[in-house]
């Protein structure tokens, strides 16, 4: 009897031993992932280990089949997958720009419903609708294309303090120039710099995104008083001596050394510029040494007369991962894909990216004790910004913003009037719309 019972028990155990793993194995979910990844970058091994292998360790039931591509090879593959209707489950993408087709054709899901209460951990601006009108990818970072960098001791040595309004800034011009310094440094030889780092912010303040979208849709024009007014304000900055024509002959990287050496108390650039001042890990040298870094502050441009958005800056959200729209809602696969996307923008991964690449986290709960003062200042700078507005070369098509880029230089050089530039941009917009 006992022997019979034992053999039955054994048989049952064997059966369980055979079937259960099979059943469990069937519950394993395979995710295909198209990742944008430079395998030769210094942080690559750390990323593979701490991001991808760690995810597999934590989620043994999710099998990730990852394809790593970089630069054009990546973009071509995405286009090919999209054309063949074989988009991977999770795909790396941009909030607009080169990923526009994924957004506008609705090939990826709206992630907002999946995000739920976790939204509280993100900077609100990064969750704004993207090119397709919804949250198609969960951004890993946020970039402000405008920041006013201030050399505080230099400013104070002139008996000045950080200006709150544009008028205060104008009043400082004679003092600063009298000391043989320049007022605002910009490396604006390349024509995108003024548009991206300064004028987008001005448009955000004086025109606003609503009006900008109206212009793009055709319900308003670039030649309307608001936009022309923004160009006129920009032209006024040269007349007031706040900007100098010579910025258009300064190379984009040339200003790094000039600003670090105290050639001017102010510099206008994107927030990414901080990276140029940090310690180079290979040489241990820095344009602004760690002990001097607390002398430099970042803030937004002072209040502009007539602004409709206060304390605003122009910004774009960064890249992130989106989810194939074909995955059924509420399915186990959706849960698995979301688990991965959530992990990729989770605090551990963002902390690693912050430490290895200085990527500003899109989450508010990420920090690290391994950061230089200027990186901390860059993170703090986001507290100054109350409103984010569009960066024009992100919101407009290339052939529309190109005449603007060149036109802004022409205004500075006195070769064109604000109205002429507005007319050219409007013309470019209309011809682009006609082609569409």
């Amino acid at each position: 009897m006992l022997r019979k019972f034992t053999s039955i028990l054994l048989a049952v155990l064997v059966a369980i031993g055979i079937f259960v793993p099979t059943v469990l194995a069937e519950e394993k979910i395979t995710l295909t992932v198209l990742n944008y990844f430079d395998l030769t970058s210094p942080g690559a091994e750390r990323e593979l280990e701490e991001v991808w292998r760690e995810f597999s360790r934590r989620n043994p039931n999710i099998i990730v089949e990852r394809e790593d591509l970089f630069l054009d090879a990546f973009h071509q593959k995405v286009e090919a997958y999209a054309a063949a209707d074989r988009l991977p489950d999770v795909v790396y993408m941009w909030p607009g720009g080169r990923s526009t087709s994924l957004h506008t054709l609705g090939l990826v899901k709206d992630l907002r419903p999946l995000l739920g209460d976790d939204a509280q951990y993100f900077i609100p601006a990064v969750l704004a609708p993207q090119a397709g009108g919804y949250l198609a990818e969960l951004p890993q970072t946020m970039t402000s294309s405008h920041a006013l960098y201030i050399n505080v001791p230099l400013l104070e040595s002139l008996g000045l303090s950080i200006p709150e309004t544009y008028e205060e800034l104008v009043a400082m011009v004679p003092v600063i120039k009298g000391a043989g310094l320049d007022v605002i440094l910009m490396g604006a030889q390349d024509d995108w710099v003024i548009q991206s780092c300064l004028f987008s912010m001005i448009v955000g303040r004086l025109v606003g995104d609503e009006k900008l979208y109206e212009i793009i849709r055709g319900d308003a024009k670039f030649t309307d008083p608001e936009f022309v007014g923004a160009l006129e304000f920009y032209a006024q900055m040269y007349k007031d001596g706040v900007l100098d024509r010579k910025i258009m002959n300064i190379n984009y990287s040339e200003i790094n050394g000039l600003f670090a050496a105290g050639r001017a108390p102010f510099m206008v650039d994107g927030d990414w510029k901080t990276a140029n001042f940090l310690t180079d890990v290979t040489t241990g040298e820095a344009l602004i040494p760690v002990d001097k870094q607390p002398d430099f502050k970042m803030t937004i441009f002072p209040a502009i007369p007539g602004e409709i958005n206060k304390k605003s800056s122009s910004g774009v959200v960064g890249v992130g991962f989106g989810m194939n729209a074909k995955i059924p809602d509420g399915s186990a696969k959706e849960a698995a894909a979301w688990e991965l996307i959530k992990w990729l923008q989770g605090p551990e991964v963002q902390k690693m990216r912050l430490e290895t690449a200085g990527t500003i986290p899109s989450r508010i709960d990420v920090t690290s004790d391994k950061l230089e003062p200027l990186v901390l200042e860059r993170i703090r700078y986001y507290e100054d910004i109350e409103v984010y507005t569009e960066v024009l070369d992100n919101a407009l098509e290339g052939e529309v913003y190109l005449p603007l880029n060149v036109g802004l230089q022409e205004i500075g050089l006195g070769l064109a009037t604000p109205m002429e530039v507005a007319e050219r941009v409007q013309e470019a917009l209309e011809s682009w719309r006609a082609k569409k």
Partner: protein
Amino acid sequence: MKRFLAWWTEERRAYLLLVLPGVLVYWAVMAFPTVFSLGLSLTNYNGGVIFGNPNIQFVGLKHYLRMFEDRYFWISLKNNGLIMAISVFGQIPLGFLFAYVIHRKLIKFGDFFQTIIYLPCVISTIVVGRLWQSFFSPYGPFTKFMQRFQPGWENELAYDPQRAIIPVLFVILWMYTGTYMIIFLANLQKIDPSLIEAARIDGATEWQVLTKIILPALSGVIVTACILAISGSLKSFDLVYAMTGGNPARRTSVLALYMYDTAFRHSPNYPLANSISVFMVLVSFALIVLVRVTEARFGGREE
């Protein structure tokens, strides 16, 4: 068949074997793209599939007309003209002068000067561009140097739209004169020295030696140098790109840079870019024919 076999001799086979690879490569990378670009410039093709794409339409000279209406095209063309002028009327005479002075030993340390003048040619163009960009920068050594003599001097040279091309022209002159000097020097060395000596004994002056013996002997080389200078100045891109990027406000742009901007920066406009490149090829051809005609008419006295 018989006729074919008679024609298909070993000699001909060997000839084809030797010539064909070169011809094929030339056609594949030079002639075919040029002709193809001409074809594409007459269509609305703007990226994507080329063959079997139903959306490609023939649009005639539309893009050429658009190109002629674009003021940046004329600015670029004018700059190309200036570069050509400085190449033909600056680099070549100066190159010849240096070569002549060194060859005739009118100065001491000829080898030293030869090396110094040729040196810029061996430095990467990008490095040269960046170097001179910082030299002419409003914060660069040139400004500081001028301010020594004239305190408060403002370096408007590089951002005054009318004069911004001058530093570029200067650098082009500085950089490429050495090439022509080497070409002339090599050819001067081929002239029989006894000829010059005989002329000197007969009482010819240095000027007469130059105009009656040396210049006629070099006329073919001068034509070659002109062709090099013209084609070189039409395709000039790297130096301008590194030095100014075509700015401020595209006032230092050249045709190649204008084409590059149109094709690869911001939103691509391939039809317009194709039109520009075809225009560049045509201008290049026309100018080289012009030089050839001039040479046939006035030159060819090297015998």
